[in-house]
């Protein structure tokens, strides 16, 4: 296997990742975004695991210990990426759990889980917040000052 064929596995991982990334960006539904984020991460896992493969290799478990008669001397696949990805899988499910908890809370607070609707509500909130905090012009300013003046 040479040339493009030699690295085709890497290309499929890119494809999977990009399907996920597309979902994250394009889908307004928060649940969809969370799932797509998972797909995106799985793509990376595929990349790592592909990295571990060795021609003719097998799972990196030293079977000779279990069965002394069997003398398999390798090659073994590289265990390091496997270890890293075990960690990454756990991380991704943890992120998913927190994301879903947030989404449930959002549903409670906003009544919807569509990003565009939430964004519209947030913008309205933000505008109200801005106006509430605005210091108005000098007119009522002078009023206040004169009140203060009389106290003094």
């Amino acid at each position: 296997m040479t040339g493009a064929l030699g690295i085709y596995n890497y290309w499929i991982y890119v494809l999977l990742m990009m399907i996920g990334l597309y979902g994250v960006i394009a889908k307004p539904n928060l649940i969809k975004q969370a799932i797509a984020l998972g797909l995106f991460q799985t793509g990376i896992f595929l990349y790592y695991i592909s990295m571990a493969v060795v021609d003719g290799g097998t799972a990196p478990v030293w079977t000779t210990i279990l069965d002394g008669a069997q003398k398999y001397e390798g090659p073994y696949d590289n265990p390091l990426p496997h270890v890293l990805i075990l960690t990454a899988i756990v991380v991704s499910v943890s992120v998913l759990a927190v994301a879903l908890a947030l989404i449930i809370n959002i549903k409670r607070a906003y009544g919807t889980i569509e990003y565009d609707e939430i964004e519209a509500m947030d913008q309205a909130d933000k505008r109200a917040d801005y106006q509430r905090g605005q210091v108005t012009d000098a007119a009522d300013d002078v009023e206040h000052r004169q009140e203060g003046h009389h106290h003094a």
Partner: protein
Amino acid sequence: MIHFDVSPPLLALYIPLLGALLISLAGRWPNLRELVTLLTAGALLWVVGGMAPAVLADDFWASFAKAPALKLAEVLPGVWLELKVEPLGMLFALIASSLWILNSIYSIGYMRGNHEKNQTRFYVCFALAIASVIGLAFAGNLFTLFVFYEALTLTTYPLVAHKGSAEAIRSARTYLGILVVTSVCFLLSGIIATYAFTDGDMTFRPGGVFRRALADGSLTAPTLGILFVLYMYGIGKAALMPVHRWLPAAMVAPTPVSALLHAVAVVKAGVFTVLKVIVYVFGPAVLVRYGVGSWLIYVAGATILIASCIALFQDNLKRRLAYSTVSQLSYVIIAAALLSPLSITAAALHIAAHAFGKITLFFAAGSIYTAAHKTEISQLDGIGRRMPFTMGAFTIGALSMIGLPPTAGFVSKWYLLQATWETDAPFVLVVVVLSTLLNAAYFLPIVYRAFFVAEAKHDDAHHSSADGHFGDDGDHHGHHAGDHGEAPWPIVVALSCTALATIAFFFYSDLAIGLANQLRSGLP
């Protein structure tokens, strides 16, 4: 590293700081608070005055070169906050500390007379501003100078914005904006560039810090010229046109603040810094040799004339005074820009002379406002008869501005004319003559009005003052424009003192001239 020490210059710095602390603690008891203010001011004058003999001594410059600077703190590795006394700074510190006492007395009368709010904050910031001025005056290197220059901007900001009205806030914004923009964009860049060119040596010394860099070619004449421009426009407080706009804007502040700004601290700090930079950072000889300073004469000359013309058309008294200040500041700058030893003496002397005259004028303006609530010149008909002391003092101040004997203004103008003769600068001569005429043209009519025009009978003028730019909100306090006499006694005492000092300066100017001559003798 931070050092603690109590030698006189440091003491002079700590006294107003301590004063500020005590004033804020005494804030609840106005009498105690103001007593603390006066005591602090007295103590400061005593300490600063005590340092003068050493500076006037014959062997001062010999010991100056050897004496180490007083180190306060190592701000950056190798960059110290340090103080060192020299004649110019001594002169400035003396002016500031002596006028602070008078200004404090005046403030007490003014602030109480006008029922101003937040008086404690006012006195605290005032003391802090004086501390900054002392630090500025005794700064031992460029970095320290910059630190206190900025500190002065900050501590005077609350004074300018004191009234808290929309207009005061707007004007204070202009004040802060122009001063900070110029200092951050130009002065700081200039200082950092200086630091880079001199390998971190920013200590003030007669003859300047650039000699080595110029000698080994790392600094060329065009770059030196750019640096000079950065400094001159970076020092926004010197109000060189076109960065003078903050000065009229700051007129919105209570009058003692205007007096402080114009006579004691801020603008004086500006021209003082200009002088200090020319003498101790660049060195007049270097500037002459590389020919990078001559443009300043023309800019300053233009500033003098244009500002005077603008002043001619101002009806608001404080605003007219403000433009007068812009023009007078450029006297100092033009004198310094002549770059001869005599002209530098003249510049130093004019800092002092203008201080006494201008503070008298502002005190008079504030006195009129407190007693009569008048702010416009057109309202002043016949006021000289009701307020003889005030308008008498005003007249003395005006004479000093014009430069007539027997007032302070004459002394410095005399030196300036001598320097003009010596350096053969006809342009400066023309400027001085023209501006003297203009000065007379915008001050004498006021005196004439006050003493020789009869007072209008039913004077509603103060109502129309609401549309005057700096008009305050009329009479909340039951004053009626028609029946008023002199202002409260602290005001009258203070302005009489400054007026007398303006005259006394003409007769007894040994101290100031001595310090200015000492400065000259230090030039290489």
